[in-house]
């Protein structure tokens, strides 16, 4: 695979400038911080509330922002310019994902600080958060490539926001509605399982299945994204 850090960095710098001037989208990323600050003042300090904020960050920053960035490139025909340049698929998709990744990690970090979340094992939690962010960014890219406009992307991202931010709350209803058992295998729930086991002091060896499920979701999302992107390179 042909990867150029210089080209990825160029796309990242461009995105950073462009995003900082795009208030319509950029204000959205502050919502998780706002909620984290409110929870902190209210004294809400449960693991579920922390991960609700983190999952919201994933849905809003990693998926929604990424979806808008890609959809805008498509809508304004700038994506075609990138495709015609010497930048490879990896350069473009990697470069276009860097901003969402950096923003997601920053928002999660500051949300955790505001909500005073201190995991028992920061390395395992950080690994799980980074892996989860790859999944959400891939979903954002996929939806952005699928959407015909920024307006449309704002709509098609809503189910992701609903399912992955608040889906975990429906898991207790799985006894009553067996179809909801599928939610247990969603990456947001797997992330929560990892966080819970970390707090219980469980060894990392017993968490591998949760990491594997998130990784599987990520690989499927990345593979679909690459397939759809390659189709977009040809009319």
């Amino acid at each position, binding site marked *: 695979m*042909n990867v150029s850090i*210089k*080209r990825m*960095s*160029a*796309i990242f*710098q*461009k995105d950073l*400038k*462009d995003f900082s*001037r*795009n208030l319509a989208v950029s204000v959205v990323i502050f919502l998780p911080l706002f909620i984290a600050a409110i929870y902190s003042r209210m004294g809400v300090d449960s693991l579920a509330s922390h991960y609700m904020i983190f999952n919201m960050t994933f849905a809003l920053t990693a998926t929604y922002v990424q979806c808008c960035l890609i959809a805008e*490139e498509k809508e*304004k*025909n*700038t*994506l*075609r*310019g*990138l*495709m*015609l*340049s*010497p*930048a*490879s698929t990896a350069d473009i998709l990697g470069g276009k994902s860097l901003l969402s990744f950096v923003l997601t990690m920053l928002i999660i970090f500051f949300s955790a600080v505001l909500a005073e979340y201190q995991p028992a094992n920061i390395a395992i939690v950080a690994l799980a958060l980074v892996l989860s962010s790859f999944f959400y960014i891939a979903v954002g890219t996929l939806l952005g490539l699928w959407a015909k406009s920024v307006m449309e992307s704002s709509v098609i991202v809503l189910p992701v926001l609903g399912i992955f931010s608040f889906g975990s709350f429906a898991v207790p209803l799985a006894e009553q509605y067996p179809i909801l058992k599928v939610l247990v295998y969603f990456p947001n729930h797997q992330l929560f399982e990892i966080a819970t086991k970390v707090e219980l002091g469980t060894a990392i060896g017993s968490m591998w299945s949760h990491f594997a499920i998130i990784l599987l979701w990520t690989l499927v999302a990345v593979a679909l994204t690459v397939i759809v992107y390659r189709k977009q*390179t*040809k*009319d």
Partner: protein
Amino acid sequence: MENIIEVNNIVKVYGNQTAVDGLDFNVIKGEIFGFLGPSGSGKTTMIKILTGQLLPTSGTATVFGEALSQLKKPEVKKRFGVLTDNSGLYDRLSIHENLKLYCQLYDIPFSAIEEVLDSVNLKEEKAKKISALSKGMKQRVVLARTLLHAPDLLFLDEPTSALDPVNTRHIHKGLQALNAKGTTIFLTTHDMEEADSLCDRIAFLDKGKIQLLDTPAKLKKSHSDSTVTIELKNEEIVVLPAGSEGAERLFEFMKTDQVATIHTNEPSLGDIFVQMTGRELA
């Protein structure tokens, strides 16, 4: 003479509509090759095929000797530039910031920006945001972006369609200067004057097929009716036929000092197109 593009029996079908229908042509290194035809004649489809954006239904083509499947290679992409009528720009960034991104993508120094902006008459406007520019200025920025990496081969799809006459002339001069330095240009247009003044050879495209292909001079000569129009000093216009009858009458007018002007009647490229297809270019 080295062919930079070779096209062999290319066909492109969309559904039940044939956009290009068995095209065969070559583009010689260093020439400006005009692809002329009305909207929907297959010009843009051909550019998309030759730049790897579209796969043909059948047929083969090479660009720089590389098959169409190889056009995605970065070293090949660096050798050509593409300007289409819907090439996009980043509205919230300035002209300079837009071009800076492409300098980094093509791995060329930022100093190239000044030079290319000068060639499209936008040097003074480089700090302006794209959203503040007129359609014509945006078209010139896209052209600057296309020229930035000094490609060996330029594909220009209606490059002056949104420009006023002053800027059109400026762009034409720039393209001629670029061509003089060795850049091969593949130009699509429906502006016959533009094709006549810029192109070394032109292909007339209609309904997906090449109807004529030659130099503008030869095309005009082969479609000329060999008549001569003279304007007399009394402002009367007389069209003289070819042959001895016309020559005798011309001699008579000249002998009696009645001639103000003499013009050979060559058809314009537009006239030839209408003659050939029975319809106007639009």
